[in-house]
C-alpha cells in the first residue's frame, strides 16, 4: 500500500515536471535518480545495519561460539579446541545406566518442568482474569490505561528487589507466620513459606504474570464487542460466551504469554537461587556453577542441551499460532 502511494506521487511529480523547461526536467530527473540510489534503495539497509550488527556480534556469534566450544576439551587451567562429545557424555552421565532412578540432569530437568507447569498455570489463570477484567469490565479508556499501567510499573523495577521483598513477609519471624501464630492457626512458625518450592513459585507468579497480562490484554482489546452481544442474543450464558468466544480469540495472546513465562522459568537461576535459598537445583544454576569453576566446554554443552529443550517447547507452542501476525 505504502509503495503504491509513493509510486503515484512520483508519477504525479513527473507529470508536473513535463510542463517545465527541459533543463529543470533534467535536474529533476537526476535528483530523482540520485535519491533512488542513495536513499530509496539503500536506506533500509544502513538503517537496519546497527540492529543487525548488534545481534550478529552479541547474540548469533556467541551462540555459535557456545556450540563450538561445547565440543572442546578442558582441564583446570585451559580449554583446547577439539571435536569430542565428552562434555555431552558427562552431561548425561549415568542417565541411561541408572534407570529407573534418575540421574542429576534428568532430576534437574524434572524439577524445572514442575516449576514451569506450576508457574505457567498460575500466571495464565491470574493473567487471564486480570486482562479480562481490564478489557471487558473497565469501561472508560482512561481508567483502563491507568489500571494497565499499575500492572506494568513493577516490571520496570528490579526483579531481585521484588524477590527480597518477600523475606520479611514469609520468613520464620515474618508477618505471615506472625499472623498465623496470633490467629492460633499454628504453634510453630512455618518454615516451608520461604526458601522453598513454594516461595520460588510465588516469586515466579509475582514477577511474570505481567508477561501474560500484556499479550492477552492486547488480544482481547481487538475482540469485536458485537461478537459477545451476538453470543448473548443467541442464548449463551456468561461462561459459555467466555469459553466459546473470548478464550479462542485470545489464543494468540495466551500463546505468546505462555512462551515468555515457560522460557523464562526454564532458563532461570536468579529467582530459584534467591527464593530457594541457593538450595534448589536448576539448569541455569548448574551452568553458572560450572562457569565459576571455569569449566566452559561443560557449561556450554549444558547450555546447548537447555537451548534445544527451549526451542522444542517454542516449536510446540508456535504450532498453535502465527506469532508474527499478532504484532
Amino acid at each position: 500500500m505504502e509503495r503504491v502511494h509513493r509510486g503515484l506521487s512520483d508519477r504525479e511529480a513527473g507529470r508536473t515536471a513535463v510542463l517545465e523547461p527541459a533543463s529543470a526536467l533534467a535536474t529533476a530527473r537526476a535528483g530523482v535518480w540520485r535519491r533512488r540510489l542513495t536513499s530509496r534503495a539503500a536506506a533500509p539497509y544502513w538503517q537496519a545495519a546497527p540492529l543487525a550488527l548488534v545481534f550478529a556480534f552479541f547474540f548469533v556469534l556467541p551462540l555459535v561460539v557456545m556450540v563450538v566450544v561445547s565440543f572442546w576439551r578442558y582441564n583446570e587451567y585451559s580449554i583446547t579446541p577439539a571435536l569430542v562429545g565428552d562434555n555431552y557424555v558427562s552431561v548425561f552421565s549415568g542417565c541411561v545406566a541408572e534407570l529407573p532412578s534418575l540421574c542429576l540432569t534428568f532430576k534437574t530437568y524434572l524439577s524445572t518442568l514442575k516449576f514451569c507447569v506450576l508457574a505457567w498455570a498460575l500466571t495464565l489463570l491470574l493473567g487471564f482474569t486480570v486482562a479480562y477484567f481490564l478489557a471487558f469490565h473497565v469501561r472508560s479508556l482512561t481508567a483502563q490505561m491507568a489500571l494497565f499501567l499499575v500492572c506494568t510499573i513493577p516490571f520496570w523495577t528490579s526483579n531481585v528487589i521484588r524477590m527480597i521483598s518477600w523475606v520479611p513477609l514469609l520468613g520464620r519471624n515474618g508477618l505471615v507466620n506472625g499472623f498465623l501464630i496470633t490467629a492460633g492457626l499454628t504453634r510453630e512458625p512455618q518454615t516451608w513459606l520461604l526458601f522453598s518450592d513454594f516461595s520460588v513459585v510465588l516469586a515466579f507468579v509475582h514477577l511474570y504474570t505481567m508477561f501474560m497480562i500484556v499479550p492477552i490484554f492486547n488480544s482481547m482489546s481487538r475482540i469485536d464487542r458485537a461478537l459477545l452481544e451476538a453470543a448473548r442474543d443467541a442464548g449463551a450464558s456468561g461462561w459459555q460466551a467466555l469459553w466459546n468466544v473470548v478464550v479462542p480469540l485470545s489464543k494468540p495472546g495466551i500463546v505468546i504469554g505462555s512462551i515468555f513465562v515457560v522460557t523464562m522459568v526454564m532458563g532461570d537461576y536468579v529467582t530459584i537461587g534467591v527464593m530457594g535459598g541457593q538450595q534448589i537445583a536448576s539448569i541455569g544454576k548448574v551452568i553458572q556453577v560450572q562457569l565459576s569453576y571455569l569449566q566452559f566446554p561443560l557449561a556450554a554443552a549444558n547450555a546447548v542441551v537447555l537451548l534445544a529443550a527451549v526451542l522444542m517447547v517454542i516449536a510446540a507452542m508456535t504450532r498453535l499460532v502465527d506469532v508474527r501476525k499478532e504484532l
Partner: protein
Amino acid sequence: MGDRRPPAFYALAAVFGLFVLFLYGPMLTIVVLSFQGPTGGLTFPMHGVSTHWFVSLWGGLGVVDIWAAFGRSLRLGLAVMVLTVVISLLAGYAFRRGFRGSSLVFYTAVASLIVPSIIVSLGIGVQFRLLDAAIKAAAEALGLAAFTESFATSAGTFTSGLGAHLTWTLPFGLLIMFAVFNRIDGRYEEAARDLGATPWQTFRHVVLPLIAPSLVGIALFGFTLSWDEAARSSQALGSDQNTLPLELTGLTTTVTNPEIYALGTATTTVSFAVILVSLLLFRTLSRRQARGR
C-alpha cells in the same frame, strides 16, 4: 454509564485489587523496613524509625564497593537507553520500507528475547575470552611485549556488558517501533514530501513529533531493563565490573541487616523516578501532539 454492573464485575474487581496488593505490598514492606531503627532486624516489628541504614549504606557495604557498582549501572543504563532509542528508531524505519532479509532480522530479535539469559551471557563471556586469547596471540606475533603484559581483557562494562544489555533491550524497542509505525498514517509524510520537504525535514517536523511519546517509552524500557538486568550480565562483564543488580544478588546471601532494604529502596527510588519522568514526558508530548492536529 447509568446501567448496572454485572455481579461478575465485583468479583473480578476484587481479584484485581488483590493482585495489585500482591504486586505492590511486598515492595512496600521493604521500603518501610529500610527505615528500621538502629537496633532493628530484617523483619517486623520496627524498633523505632530512623535513617540509620541509609547512612550506613552511604558509607559503603564492607568489602563490596556498592557506589562503584551504582555508578557503573547508571552509566551503562544511560548508554543502553540512548543506543536502544537510536538503533530501534532506525530499524523501525528500515522495517517499514522493507528490505531483503528483514524476516531473518526480525526472528533473530524475537529469539534474542526468548533464549534464556544465562545462555546469551555464557556465549558472550566465552566469546570475549577467546577474543582476548586471539588479541594476545596477535600482539605476541607482532612482538608487542608491552601491550601483551598490560592487556588484561577486552570484556568490560562498555564492550561485552553493553552488548549483552542491548540484546535484551533492542527487541522491546523494535516491537514498540512496529506498533508505532503501524499506527502512523503514511499520508502525513506524503503531504510533507509533496510540499517539498527533504527526508530530514519530513522526519524532524512530521514523523518525530508523532512518534516522540513512543520514543520516550523505548527510552524507559532501555534504561530500566538495563538498570535491573542481572542474568545476562552475570558472565558478560569483566572481573570486578559488577553492576548493581549483580552485587545485590550476591548480597542476598551475605547481608543480615536492613542495609539491603535501604539499598533496595534507593534502587527502586531511581526506577520510580525514571518511570515518573517518562510518564510525565509521555503525557506532555502526547498532549502537544493532540493540540497540533
